[in-house]
Every structure is written in structure tokens, then in C-alpha cells.
């Protein structure tokens, strides 16, 4: 039944191509929206069938595809992939809704978005390394076109940069996977078969390094991040939503699934370095965000900073930090999606994203009061004000990582403090102050345009008050990834806890 989540959008994408006749873009939008909504509802049904109490990968589907290559079509879902699959279906629906009604070449556009949705779902569900890699590579193609065709003025540069970076990341991941199969002497790429092998720690580290560099590009972690701000600035709003909300999560997902799942001992051995890399990236992203003038760049750099927390929590590898990292992924997905939608609305109405040009948009009569209020909410959620999902996810990340890596955790908390600085500067400049005459007669934003932002904002508050709606799925995730050890890894494997206190 999981195949539906992958192939339904992909078939729908093909059907969009095949529908004869020239129709208005509204038709394609409606079609794509219904497909994505059906997928979203179906993902909720899958969640209903998912047994939380069972520490196993569930709802398996499997048949041998290419035996000589070790490629099996093997799908499954667990507490790590389930929230991300739901997030993907949800944010894709939002992105399709947000897409401008009068898109150029709508047929191509919506087909690509659906293709993207299906392939990302595939990557989240694949239980075979090669299958994951296939979906991971397929997903690059539609995204490349979505940036390169519907992007801003420097879209060619940004899209090519994205393509080259991500292709490199794919190659590095493939190298690591091939090496793993080679060293373990298996004839298959199946996740569980490979997991049962325990390679020497040095070999694990050797294989882990290309994997990590590949994923650092995707997440992105400093210094492999430079494609992200460019891609965000050039991409249109819905694509930014998908990019920040879902696609970055592919990197952190693979980090947990394959980095922690397959190379646990090697992972723990280099975890202290990873924690510092995460802290460095968090501070670097925050520092860069402070001096940006483009609202989208501010949000893009904040993405870099906030995704680094996932790496920090993953490096700590305790039960708590593992669940916290999943929550942080969902949290970042929702918050960054909200912020990008709102920046998109500001850009649509004012024609600018320049923080030095925009001023006083909170004005209730002529400005964008609702957008402004939602922006304040989103910014506060991102800065970790309690009552919203950003606080609890960050709190759990810090609480989970502190016992293992106190200093990197404290550095990351400084980064959280800096979040308030750059976002507050942005909100203060753009929304506070007196509305300038050039901006005085903005077209009113209709409720229909605000609706997605309002939905996401209410989810941010809801999950902030009831975080177990998200964390509840991953209660047994530690067992799956740590392979049976109920306790924290740090207590199982000596060496980490000693140099921590």
C-alpha cells in the first residue's frame, strides 16, 4: 500500500502530460491539488495503520527487481519516515495551492511538482540503498527544471549550481553505498541485510566520510551550503517552500537512516567532530543571516542554522536526541514553509524583498496587517518562543545533546539567540515604522492567499502545545536505528560519555 504514495503522484504527472487539448492553468492546478490532497489523506490513512508500539519497519512491500545488482523494490515505513512523508504530502499540497494561478506552461509545471512529490516519498520509503539512491537522483531532475524554468533573473546560474552540487552529493552517497556492499561482502543493497554486518570502526569511518560530505551538501552544512541561498533567491515561492520544507529533510533523513543506522560505531567515533561541525554551521548561518538585505536570503541562511541542530542531535545519538532531531525536522519544515509563503506574499504585493526598501507594512489600512502578524508569529516560532513548535523541538535537541556534547550545545543555543537578532531586525525594518509613500497603496491580500499560511501557523501552535502528536510516532525509532539497544548509545559504547563531562 505504500507504493500508492509514490506511484499515484507520478502516474498523475504522466496523465497531466497526456491530457489532450489546451486548458487553462486553473484546471491543471486543481487537478494537481486534488492528486496531492488525495496523497496527503492517504498518508494519514497509512499513519492510522501504522502501529506505534511496534519497534519495526512496517507495512513492508518487496519484490526482487534486479537480482544480479542486488536491487530489490523494498518499501517500508517507520517513525522516522512517517512524519516526513506526511510533511511532504502536506507541503506539496500547500505549494501547489500557493502556485500562481496563471503559471506559464502549467502542464509541465504541475507534472514536475507531482513527480517531485512521488520521488521524495519514494526516497523516504525505500528500504534498499540503491532504491533510495534512485529516488534521490530522480528528485533532482524536476527540481532543477522548477528552478531553471520558473525562477528569477539568475535562475540559470542557481539551477546549474544546485544541479552540480546535488549530483556530486549523489555520487558521494553512491560511493559510500558501493563501498559498504563491497566491504561487507553482501550481494544485496537491502538496508537490513547491511545493517546486520558490523564492519571494523575504521572501515566504517572511511565509508562514512563520503556519505557525510554528500549529505552535508544536501542539508546543507557549512562549507557546502552555498547553493542554497542562490537556489532560494531564484526559486519561486512554492519551490522555496518545497526546497526548505521537504528537500533539505532528505539529507537529514539519510543522515539518521544510513549514517546512524548503518555505521553506528563509526558514527559515534566521529560524533564529537560532527557536533562541532553542527555548532559551527549554526553560528555561521546565523551570522550570515544578520547582514543579509534580501528577506529570502535571511530565511535561507536561517534554514542553514536550524538544520544544523538536526545534525547536533543526530551526533548525540541518544534516544531523546534522536526523537528531538525528527521533531526539529518537522518543526523546521513547517516554520520555514510559513516564512517563505509570507515572504512570497510580501514580494507579490510590493514587488520587493529588500529590507532597506520595505517599511511599515503592518499598517492596518494600507499595509499587510495579517501577513505581518503571521510573520511575527513565524519569526517568533523560529526564534524558539514557547507555545510554538520551534521552542519544544529546540529545547529537546539541546536537552538531548547537552549531556553528551555540552559545549557544542551551548554554542548552538547562542545560535538560537542570534535567530532572534536577525529575524527581529528583519521584522522591525519591514513591518514596523511608517509606511513609505511608494508602498502606500498596496493591493489587499485576499483570505484565500493567506489561507495556507494560516493553516501552517495553526499547526505550528498546535504542535507547539501538543508535541507528542509528532514525537509519538518515533517512540521506538531508537530501537530500529540503534538495533535493539534501548538505552542511550553513549552508555552502550564507552568513550563518548567520558570525554563529555
Amino acid at each position, binding site marked *: 500500500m505504500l507504493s500508492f504514495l509514490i506511484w499515484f503522484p507520478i502516474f498523475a504527472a504522466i496523465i497531466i502530460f497526456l491530457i489532450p487539448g489546451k486548458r487553462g492553468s486553473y484546471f491543471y492546478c486543481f487537478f494537481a491539488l486534488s492528486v496531492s490532497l488525495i496523497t496527503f489523506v492517504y498518508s494519514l490513512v497509512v499513519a492510522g495503520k501504522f502501529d506505534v508500539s511496534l519497534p519495526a519497519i512496517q507495512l513492508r512491500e518487496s519484490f526482487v527487481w534486479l537480482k544480479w545488482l542486488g536491487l530489490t523494490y523494498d518499501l517500508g515505513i517507520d517513525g522516522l519516515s512517517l512524519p516526513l512523508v506526511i510533511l511532504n504530502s502536506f507541503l506539496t499540497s500547500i505549494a501547489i495551492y500557493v502556485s500562481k494561478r496563471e503559471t506559464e506552461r502549467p502542464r509541465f509545471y504541475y507534472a514536475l511538482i507531482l513527480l517531485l512529490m512521488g520521488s521524495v516519498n519514494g526516497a523516504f520509503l525505500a528500504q534498499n540503498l540503491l532504491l533510495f539512491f534512485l529516488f534521490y537522483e530522480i528528485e533532482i531532475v524536476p527540481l532543477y527544471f522548477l528552478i531553471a524554468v520558473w525562477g528569477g533573473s539568475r535562475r540559470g546560474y542557481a539551477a546549474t549550481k544546485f544541479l552540480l552540487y546535488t549530483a556530486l552529493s549523489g555520487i558521494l552517497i553512491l560511493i559510500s553505498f558501493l563501498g559498504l556492499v563491497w566491504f561487507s561482502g553482501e550481494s544485496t543493497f537491502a538496508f537490513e541485510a547491511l545493517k546486520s554486518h558490523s564492519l571494523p570502526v575504521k572501515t566504517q569511518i572511511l565509508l562514512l566520510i563520503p556519505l557525510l560530505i554528500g549529505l552535508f551538501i544536501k542539508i546543507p552544512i557549512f562549507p557546502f551550503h552555498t547553493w542554497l541561498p542562490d537556489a532560494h533567491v531564484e526559486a519561486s515561492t512554492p519551490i522555496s517552500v518545497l526546497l526548505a520544507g521537504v528537500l533539505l529533510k532528505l539529507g537529514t533523513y539519510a543522515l539518521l537512516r544510513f549514517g546512524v543506522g548503518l555505521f553506528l560505531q563509526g558514527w559515534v567515533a566521529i560524533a564529537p567532530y560532527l557536533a562541532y561541525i553542527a555548532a559551527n554551521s549554526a553560528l555561521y548561518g546565523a551570522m550570515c543571516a544578520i547582514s543579509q538585505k534580501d528577506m529570502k536570503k535571511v530565511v535561507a541562511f536561517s534554514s542553514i542554522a536550524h538544520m544544523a541542530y538536526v545534525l547536533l542531535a543526530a551526533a548525540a545519538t541518544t534516544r531523546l536526541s534522536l*526523537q528531538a532531531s525528527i521533531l526539529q525536522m518537522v518543526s523546521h519544515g513547517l516554520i520555514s514553509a510559513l516564512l517563505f509563503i509570507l515572504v512570497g506574499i510580501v514580494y507579490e504585493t510590493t514587488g520587493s524583498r529588500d529590507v532597506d526598501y520595505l517599511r511599515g507594512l503592518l499598517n492596518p489600512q494600507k499595509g499587510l496587517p495579517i501577513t505581518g502578524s503571521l510573520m511575527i508569529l513565524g519569526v517568533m516560532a523560529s526564534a524558539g518562543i514557547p507555545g510554538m513548535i520551534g521552542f519544544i523541538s529546540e529545547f529537546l535537541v539541546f536537552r538531548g545533546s547537552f549531556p553528551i556534547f555540552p559545549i557544542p550545545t551551548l554554542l548552538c543555543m547562542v545560535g538560537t539567540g542570534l535567530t532572534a537578532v536577525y529575524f*527581529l531586525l528583519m521584522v*522591525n525594518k519591514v513591518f514596523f515604522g511608517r509606511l513609505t509613500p511608494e508602498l502606500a497603496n498596496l493591493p489587499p491580500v485576499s483570505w484565500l492567499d493567506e489561507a495556507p499560511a494560516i493553516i501552517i501557523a495553526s499547526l505550528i501552535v498546535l504542535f507547539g502545545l501538543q*508535541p507528542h502528536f509528532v514525537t509519538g510516532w518515533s517512540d521506538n525509532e531508537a530501537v530500529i536505528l540503534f538495533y535493539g539497544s534501548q538505552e542511550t548509545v553513549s552508555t552502550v559504547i564507552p568513550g563518548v560519555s567520558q570525554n563529555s563531562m
Partner: protein
Amino acid sequence: MVDFLIKHIWWIPLYGLLGAILTLPWALGLIRETGQRPAAYINLLMTFLSFLHGSIVFLNINQRPSETLDFPWFTIADLHLSFTIEISPISSGALELVTTISLVAQLFALGYMEKDWSLARFYGLMGFFEAALGGIAISDSLLLSYGLLEMLTLSTYLLVGFWYAQPLVVEAARDAFLTKRVGDILLLMGIVALSSYGAGLNFSQLREWAQSHPLSDFTATLVGLALIAGPTGKCAQFPLNLWLDEAMEAPNPASVMRNSIVVCAGAYILIKLQPVFTISRIASDTLIIIGTITAIGASLIALAQIDIKRALSHSTSAYLGLVFIAVGLGHTDIAFLILFSHGVAKALLFLSVGAVIYTTNDQNITEMGGLWSKMPATTLAYMTGSGGIVGLLPLGMLITFSRWFDGRLEVSWWLLSILIVVNFLNALNFTRVFRAVFLGDCQPKTRRAPEVPWPMALPMVSLTIITLIAPLVPLQYNLWLSPNPPILENHNPVVFYAIPLIILSGLAGVVVACFIPLYRGFSRPVQKTLRLLQDLLAYDFYLDRIYKMTVVSLVANISRFTSWCDRYIVDGVVNLVTLMTIFGGNTLRYNTSGQSQFYLLTILMGVTLLIWWVLSSQWQNIINYWSSF
């Protein structure tokens, strides 16, 4: 019924929150037909409800033992998070203070904010404020209190930035948020550390944990300092004190709340955390040092202010500094009483100041004068309020001080001398402001100054009465927080001389203030030293400039440097690689000339190089091989 109300004490903050949520349709402009007034009435009703509920609880709680209610929030991995509510005389007393001041301030706002176009937003934020404060009053969980403190930070930001079209307001809102955020992040670090080191996050658990904690001295000190940082920001203590002064740009009813009870929220948590500070000597000493610096420094700064609200807001910092000293000494009950006495009286002072500002549309005290005969209720309120804060008349603060020096707590000369200095300076300051505003000749701005209308006069007069009967609280107060105080022998001379000396210092302040010359209009002394001194105080010891030159410019420069690096070095390397690839490709394409001789040459050269490379390390062997023939 009473039992039910006491059990559901946690509804009280929710009333405020509900009121805030109900104002949303008006605040967001969804309902325009009715005007903004209904939102204000809804909030007033909700606040009145919470006041009523709180009062019933407060009046009936004395006979009951204190208890706690536990609301599990959620469990993740091995971490259980729960919200604990404390039902005790202390918590209900704090809650009563919050609801009373909030009711008074909101009633006052009905008049003060009458002409404002976004009354609903204001009342919504006030309701939010009240909810967060009420929550802190009854919370027994550090995590919940932290969350509520952050809600306070957020609503302070929004309330200070209420008139966001003015540039000064925008700056003030930003500074208030960021300054408090610095403290909050450090506090969060402390909470994460405490929780990681095995302490529960309830105050009672922390108390037990502090007695047998596993930390080294160094770590304990760091944790203690981190926990102090949060309240330092909230209570506007040095070095995080400047935001309160700037926050005076906010509407006055919000300033009433802020100066009386919002600053108390941080101190209240400090009081609850006091057992944790006992684990580190340095932490409790730091509390005393911060408190002393702020108490004296802020009192001095207040002397040179000519903005009426700023002159009073610095004295708020000063009295909160006394609270810090009391907590540092472990005198938590006294800390609580100072908070109470100061809160009530300061709220009254700010009401009267609000009335003056409302009538004169002016905040500059050098442009005022002669208001006493025109605004009698306001004058009376100001006198009562300052009387309640200065230790001179037998009102709240003097009674509190006398409890401090009644021989049951360990006190020493230095504490008394700090109190004397602070008391003297504040008496001086309040009398100075009083003379400038209410006495003397009328000036253009105060010539036509009718007394304020009843929505403002009523809360002001009621609070005047409350301030007059407030001394009953410190008189009747049982030492709930530390029931077994160290009792001294009564021979301690400090105890004998303390109260007369404090009264004397208050009197001296008043007398000196009566005889110093007051300048009308903007004036600076001719004498150079005096002028330097006045500037030093008037510009808050130049703290803001020091911050601008150090912290702010440091962050700004690092950020600029990082982004430059990002743009030209990190991204530059990437682009360089790309360029080189393209350049390489462009150059190499001239090789494809089509001449087969050229290809042959290339192949030959390649093969030669390859052979050379393969054989390069083998030459010696080859030579040896051939030479053996």
C-alpha cells in the same frame, strides 16, 4: 464552591488568555462596524472575573495547607515534562497582586487609550500579559515559568512596539526584546543543564536536588550564573538594565504593568530558585553585587532624568536591585515583601504620571509645574505612591524594611548603608519630580490642566486607598517561604539603629530636594565637573554607547565579515573551480583540429608519459638488470 474555586486556581490566567483571544476579530479588523470598544469591555470583564476568582481564593487560602497540582504535558524517551501549579498563600497572593494591578491598569487604559485607533490590539496584548503573569504567579515548574517568561518577552516586544510607526518606539521594542532574550537564552542554558544533571524541573524538586547535587564547584557556579541571567534581564538589572528605560515609549497603562508587576515576574522566579543559588557561593555573591550596583547606580541615573516616566523607571530597577540583594542573602520573604510593596506603590505612581501625561500631552518635567491645585487626585496619588516606596512614612516599604531589621534575620552594616543610600537617593528623586511637576508656577503646558475623567480617576483613587492599606500585608505576613529564619540575639546594634536611620535618610532626601535649585527649560550647569556628572547620569553612564561600541559592533562586524567570506571565499572557491573547468574545456577544445598526425602525436606522448611513470621507480632495477650482462 470555594473549594472548587481554589482547586481551579489555574483558570485565572486562562481568563486573561481567553480575553486576549476574543479580541482577535477586532484587532485583526474582521469586525469594523462596532468600533474597537467591545474588545476592551470583553477584556475588562475577563480581568474582573479573574480578579473576583483570585480574591475569593486569596481570602480563603490562609487556613489551608499548600498543595500542588500536576498536569503531565508529554513524555519523550526518558524525559517527562509536566506543568505543576502551586496553590499556596504566596502564589495566590502574587496572583491577587497581578489581577488587581491588571484590572486597575486596564480600567485606566479605557480613559488613557480612548482615542487610539487600535484599542483592541492593546487590550488583547494586555490580556496576554496578564495571562502570562498570572501563570508565573502560580507556576511551580521552572519549564512552565520559563515559557511564560518568554511569552512576557514577546508581549513586551509587541506592547513597547505598540505605536510602531515611530522610529524611537521601534528601536525600544527591538532593544527590549533582544536584551531580555540574552537573559532568557542564558536561563535556558541553565535549565537544560539542570535538567541534564538530573534535577527535576519543579521548584520543590530543585530544592531537594540542591541539597545533594552532584556538580563540581565550577559547574555549579556556571549553572547558578546562567539562572541569574534570566531574571537579570527581566528585572532590568545591570548590565541588562537599559531596556526598561527605553520601554517607556510604550503606552502608559502598559508601563504601569511593566514597572510594577512584569519586572517582578523575573524576581519571583529568582525567589523560587533561591535554593539553587545556595549551591554556589559565587552565584549568591553575584546576586548581591548585581543588586548593589543596580540599586545605587539606577538611583543615581534617575536623578538626572527629565522625562517623567524615565525618572521613575530607573527607580524600579533600583528597588528590584534590593530584591536581588535580599535573594542573595537568602532573605526570600523580604524579597517577596519588597516586590509587593514596591509593586503596588509603583503602579500608583505610574497611574498618576499617566494622568499628568494625558492632561498635558507632555513628558518633560522641566516644562511642567503647579499642577497640585488643578489635579488634586493625581497629586494625592503621586504623594501616596512615592510615600509607599520611600522609607519615610509608615507605608509599605518602611514596614517591609522594619521586618527586614526586626532581629529575626541576619543583617549587617553594609546592607543598612546600601538601604540608606538608596532610600536617600530615591526620596531626593521623587521629591525633585514632585516639585517640578506639581509645585511652583504654571507653565504654558500646564496652564489648562483639568483633572482626568472618571475612568482614569477611579482606578487611581482606588489604588491610592489600596496603597494606604497595603502596609497590612508586611505586618500580617507569616514567613512562608523560609519558615525557620535564623534568629539573632537582639543585641545587634544594626537592628536598633536601622529604622531611625532609614527614616532619617528619607527625610534628608526630601529636605535636600526641597532646597536644590530646579531649572526650567533645558539647562546644563556652568561648572564643568557638575556638567560632566549630569551628562554621565543623564545618559545612563553612557552604557548604551558602550554596548554599541562593544557588543553590537562586534556582532555586526563579525556578521559582515562572515557574509563577505561566504560571498567571496566559500562561494568564490566554488566559482573558481567552475571557471577553471570551463576555461580548461575551452582551451582543450582547440586540440580537436582534425589532423590525424596531431592525434597520433598526442597518443604517442601519452603512452610515453605513461610508460615513464610506470617505470619511473624501476630505473635502478632496470639498470642493474642490464648491467649484469
